[in-house]
């Protein structure tokens, strides 16, 4: 046996213009010919699927005198074969003419399987993209929903002081009427009860000031909470202020379920996507109060929020004394759509959004630990000096 005659490689000699001078048995078989002899004199160019292959091949052969592992495609009976061709140019042969001697290896099987893999990967990438798009649409909807819910809660918080400011305002009208009447009759008499009115006026104005201040605080928090846009970085984000604002805004979510205490250490302002980090704080507070609500239906629980600086990271912890995260859920709480809450209450997007915001947007970390009070601590860390590669 001889590799050039019996091996599964094509051994081919052609003239400079491509006429086949000799070919081995496997080569003849490859080109669908009955015998090597039946191919002699035929031109090889006709077999190339892509004329440019041959052009390029000759061009290189001309400059270098040889080519190595050059990829060519042959079209045979409607099927395209990918081959590697190695060749040398023989300028003076015994037959007198310029000849090209080449060895061709069929790598179609290899290329085809690669192509299959590549196509699969491409399809996967498309599916992945669709999934991601669907996820961001849902995330956006979740955000809108939570803003709606928030708005309802905020309206509730404002309604309360608004109620007594309005009723006070009605008293003011009555008092003014009484004073007007007294002035008209030019008798600042007993009847007008002016002493009482004056005293109550001071009281009413004090109460109104309080009520209006409360409303102003809520609207200010709301403004700060939602003002930062999510596309651009807030250059000087004040984490503690954000915690306070979020607590004001989310008050109606937790006030019947939990007492909240804070331990906010000094944190220098740092750049981050403020709007997004606010969302994270809000999600963690809402989760904590829901966990407490599930554990104690009647009794109030306790949420503790602390912040600190640790080694260049701003750290925030939301601790609750709800039921904690059960072992069976531990690995999945940050997965999109993972929820243990009843249908309609949770979509399971909250923590996955938090993860995306902290880890992907800020190169930070977020995790949880079950604590000694039976509840969970959710903790995040954001580098205070953000690299450019976010």
């Amino acid at each position, binding site marked *: 046996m001889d590799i050039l005659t019996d091996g599964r490689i094509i051994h081919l000699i052609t003239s400079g213009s491509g006429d086949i001078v000799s070919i081995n048995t496997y080569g003849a078989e490859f080109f669908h010919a009955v015998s090597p002899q039946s191919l002699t004199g035929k031109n090889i160019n006709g077999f190339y699927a*892509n004329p440019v292959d041959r052009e*390029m091949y000759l061009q290189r052969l001309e400059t270098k005198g040889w080519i190595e592992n050059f990829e060519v*495609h042959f079209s045979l009976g409607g099927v*395209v074969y990918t081959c590697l061709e190695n060749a040398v140019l023989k300028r003076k042969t015994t037959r007198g003419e310029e000849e090209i001697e080449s060895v061709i290896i069929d790598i179609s099987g290899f290329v085809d399987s*690669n192509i299959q893999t*590549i196509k699969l990967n491409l399809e996967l990438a*498309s599916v992945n993209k669709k999934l991601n798009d669907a996820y961001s649409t849902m995330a956006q909807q979740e955000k809108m929903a939570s803003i709606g819910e928030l708005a309802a809660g905020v309206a509730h918080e404002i309604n309360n002081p608004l109620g007594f400011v309005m009723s006070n305002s009605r008293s003011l009208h009555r008092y003014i009427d009484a004073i007007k009447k007294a002035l008209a009759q030019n008798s600042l008499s007993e009847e007008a009860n002016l002493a009482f009115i004056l005293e109550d006026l001071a009281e009413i104005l004090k109460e109104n000031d309080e009520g209006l201040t409360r409303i102003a605080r809520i609207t200010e928090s709301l403004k700060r909470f939602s003002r930062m846009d999510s596309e651009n970085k807030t250059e000087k984000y004040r984490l503690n202020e954000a915690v306070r604002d979020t607590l004001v805004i989310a008050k109606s979510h937790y006030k019947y379920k939990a007492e909240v205490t804070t331990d906010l250490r000094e944190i220098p302002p740092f750049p981050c996507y403020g709007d997004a980090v606010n969302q994270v704080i809000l999600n963690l507070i809402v989760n904590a109060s829901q966990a407490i609500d599930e554990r104690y239906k009647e009794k109030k629980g306790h949420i503790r929020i602390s912040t600190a600086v640790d080694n260049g990271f701003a750290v925030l912890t939301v601790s609750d004394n709800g039921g904690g995260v059960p072992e069976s859920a531990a690995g999945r709480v940050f997965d999109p759509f993972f929820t243990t809450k009843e249908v309609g209450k949770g979509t399971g997007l909250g923590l996955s959004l938090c993860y995306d915001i902290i880890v992907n947007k800020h190169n930070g970390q977020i995790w949880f630990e079950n604590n000694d009070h039976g509840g969970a601590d959710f903790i995040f860390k954001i580098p205070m000096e953000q690299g450019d590669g976010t």
Partner: protein
Amino acid sequence: MSEEKVVTIDMVSVGFLRDPDGSTLRCRISGQLETSNSPGFLDTVKDELGRQGVKKMVMELSGLTYVSSTGIGSFTTLLIECKKRGVALVLKNMSEKVKSVFDLLGFTSFFELE
């Protein structure tokens, strides 16, 4: 980047130009893309693609005279990379010769051609 930056790998060269606002990356590819220079080509383009703010990559291919199956593989790897990053990839002015290789291997339909 306002000047075109040109990187040459063996027989292929790539010129990069970013639009003033940085969102579109234009790559002008010329020469021959084959098995030996594909990995280098891929790395070079990926590096540039990884810069911040790129939303669209337009590859101008009129100067590309030859592409092997591995070269096609590089384009598809880039396409996958673009999809991951949410970058739109457009292949522009592909010569008939190069397009025929995409056709032969059945990849044309995956790409947006202009």
